């Protein structure tokens, strides 16, 4: 599609104002890059809180009843609130803002050759709503009676009735925070889709768009199409909590299982909403550091779309034993296992891309390769859970916990590190330290596997979720199982101990790192043709696009890359 001369809305936006006070430049800006940083830094701060929660409840599981350093003795109510909010924060306030909103905002205009998002003010409003939602969630943790403890899935009647959950304020604030967060991402999603579709640089056809932009746009469409039912559900839940309605109260004509359908109709596509952008980041990094064209670009786009469509038809695999019609489980087993076809195909394509490459194991490449290697574990263990006959046993055990951390940890941590270390020179105009980057990488990977491999065995042994002390349960309190729990907790401490290395490297490199040139990785995509860091408006003159994003090592050319905007 031809470049639609940048919309009128843009011209009217408060655009060419690079000066101004700190407040206007960094807090009230409509610049997509500043908003991307706002999302990323807020997401990282929330990640620290979510990680602290994981530390507290893992310590409780390894050493039940002992005072956790930095927290104290954990009560059962606090334990429930910790696991609930760890899940909520890591998915809604870390994975979503960093991957979709952070990378989406930073990359889409730069990669499609636009000077900003199509709706810059809407973009600013999106972050402000998100910030409010984060503050409401944090407030919910410290109100009277404590934070909500009914799991991130918030199944009623427990979540709907304060006589059951005992946290009247915490539960309502939790629902309000989640609903506000959805509104924020709806606004962001509109921007991503419209910008990628209408504001591309002259010459950039749909199949010249980098994979990461495709994935973020498809993810935004999935989000917008799936979040409606859950928004309705959230309002109904809030009414049940505050106004005494009975949408989900079985004793007054409601149905608790209705919530589960509304929740998972959103909740399962949500997995792909964050997975797809992560896969996109990995594709960008892998092609650059293998100096290879992406294997079968159009097939990848096909798998992205197929995954997105199929993800709408698998939700009830979360409910096999919830009391739904047992015949439904057969249908959802089929759809769930079928989704392994496009996802496996995507993995095959990525592996095939390495064939014939010239692979450089830089820090971003290590993260991208680790994503694929670890994602295979997350993928194959999903098959166990999608198989209805086996899910009767494995549902709601730590096998599930281990499985989804082999997807979500990769998404929210490994892919994010790949993206940050790869685009860091563009974001801040400086390079990060490679040696410390590699030390951080190996420590994180070792710690991560040490935490979650044992959890597969614990889950297979029948360890059910959200229990604050297993040692009193005869079959689950066996010493060899407790030893696995302690191993997982110690691995978590190792994992956490390596993170300050990244933080120091990150902050230090922003101010003191060696200066980066415009295109330090010799990459093709358009963001590398802008200055590092790009100014407000990105380019003095918008680029013209002549070819696709992955023309690496084209035969007969002097250099092994061919930027999208280089004249033929």
């Amino acid at each position: 599609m031809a470049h639609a001369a940048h919309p009128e809305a843009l011209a009217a936006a408060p655009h060419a104002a690079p000066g101004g006070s700190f407040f206007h430049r960094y807090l009230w800006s409509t610049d997509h890059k500043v908003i991307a940083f706002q999302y990323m830094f807020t997401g990282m701060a929330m990640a620290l809180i979510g990680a602290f929660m994981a530390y507290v409840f893992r310590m409780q599981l390894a050493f039940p009843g002992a005072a956790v350093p930095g927290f104290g003795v954990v009560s059962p109510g606090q334990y429930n609130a910790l696991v609930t909010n760890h899940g909520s924060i890591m998915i809604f306030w870390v994975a979503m803002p960093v991957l979709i909103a952070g990378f989406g905002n930073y990359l889409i205009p730069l990669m499609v050759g636009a000077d900003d998002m199509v709706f810059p003010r809407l973009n600013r409003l999106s972050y402000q709503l998100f910030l409010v939602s984060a503050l409401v969630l944090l407030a919910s943790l410290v109100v009277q009676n404590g934070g909500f403890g009914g799991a991130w899935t918030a199944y009623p009647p427990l979540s709907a009735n304060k006589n059951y959950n005992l946290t009247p304020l915490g539960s309502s604030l939790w629902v309000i925070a989640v609903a506000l967060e959805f509104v924020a991402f709806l606004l962001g999603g509109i921007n991503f889709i419209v910008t990628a579709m209408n504001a591309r640089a002259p010459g950039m056809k749909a199949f010249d768009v980098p994979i990461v932009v495709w994935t973020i746009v498809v993810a935004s469409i999935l989000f917008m199409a799936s979040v409606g039912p859950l928004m309705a559900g959230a309002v109904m839940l809030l009414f049940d909590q505050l106004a005494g309605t009975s949408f989900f109260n079985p004793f007054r004509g409601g149905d608790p299982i209705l919530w589960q359908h509304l929740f998972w109709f959103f909740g399962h596509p949500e997995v792909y909403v964050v997975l797809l952008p992560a896969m996109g980041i990995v594709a960008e990094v892998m092609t650059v550091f293998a100096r290879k064209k992406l294997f079968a670009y159009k097939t990848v786009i096909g798998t992205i779309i197929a995954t997105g469509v199929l993800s709408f038809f698998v939700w009830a695999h979360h409910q096999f034993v919830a009391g739904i019609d047992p015949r439904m489980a057969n249908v959802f087993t089929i759809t769930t296992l079928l989704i392994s076809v496009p996802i496996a195909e995507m993995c095959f394509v990525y592996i095939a891309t390495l064939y014939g490459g010239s692979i450089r194991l830089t820090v971003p490449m290590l993260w991208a390769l680790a994503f694929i290697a670890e994602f295979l574990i997350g993928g194959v263990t999903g098959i166990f859970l999608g198989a209805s006959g086996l899910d009767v046993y494995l549902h709601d055990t730590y096998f599930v916990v281990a499985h989804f951390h082999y997807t979500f940890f990769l998404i929210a941590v490994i892919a994010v590190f790949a993206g940050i270390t790869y685009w860091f020179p563009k974001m801040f105009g400086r390079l990060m330290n490679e040696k410390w980057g590699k030390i951080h990488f190996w420590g994180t990977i070792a710690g991560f596997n040490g935490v979650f491999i044992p959890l597969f065995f614990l889950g297979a042994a029948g360890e059910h979720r959200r229990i604050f002390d297993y040692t009193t349960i005869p079959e689950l309190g066996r010493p060899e199982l407790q030893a696995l729990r302690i191993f997982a907790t110690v691995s978590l401490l190792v994992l956490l101990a390596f993170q300050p290395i990244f933080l120091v490297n990150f902050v230090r490199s922003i101010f003191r790192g060696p200066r980066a040139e415009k295109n330090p990785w010799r990459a093709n995509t358009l963001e590398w043709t802008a200055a590092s860091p790009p100014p407000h408006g990105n380019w003095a003159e918008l680029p013209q696009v002549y070819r696709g994003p992955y023309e690496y090592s084209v035969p007969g050319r002097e250099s092994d890359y061919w930027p999208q905007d280089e004249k033929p």
Partner: protein
Amino acid sequence: MLEHLVPSASSFSGDVDRLFLLIAVIVGVWFVAAEAMFFWLIFRFRAAPGQPAQYITGKEKRLKRWINWAHALVLVCDVVIIVAAVRVWVKIKQTLPPADLTVRVTGQQWAWTFTDPGPDRRLDTADDVRTTDEMHLMVGKTYHFQLVSKDVLHSFFVPAFRLKQDAVPGRVYTGWFRTERAGTYDILCAEICGMGHGVMTAKLTVAGEAEHAAWLARHAGDAALAAVDTPAPAAAPDTAGAAAHHAAMGHTQAH
């Protein structure tokens, strides 16, 4: 595999364990093959001076078939797993073999209560025996269980039976299992149900008929109590509407 981690005590434990093994073998082969290929490619095509990368679009049929073959094989494996999984599922959840006895399992914050039909082997009669936090069954019998909840969602989880089913307030779920091996096992609640979720456990004793009869005799005094309390889940006055609403599919029926 699973039987080494958790005892195996119901007639379908073995089916679930074999399904686990089947899937483990199939996905294990894929996993090892994919990782081996992946690491070999990284090693084989590591950057070396004078060895530029090749230009491969992946559009050629000759190359694309490497993806397409794998893709078709994944589909075949999926079909095998689906068939095996559905067979186990239908056996456990979608069929209801004739029962020797029927028991009632009631979840509430935060305890399991079990109603044994007593010496006359009929529920809701004066000789029912009701116990909290412990369940007693006879070995080698096919049981139906009526699963109910008085308040929030709970999930009746007996790892040794490979059985899990949510208890939904306002509904009576009827399921089954057949006890195969005597012993004591855990009963857990697998669905978060509030503050005391972690302590909502019970002890299951599966014993021979004589032993069970002796246990029943010891608890004969509890009968009157049990009679007063049934039917269990009528916690709210207007349950009837909700129950009728759910009187539909599968095992779920109005009470």
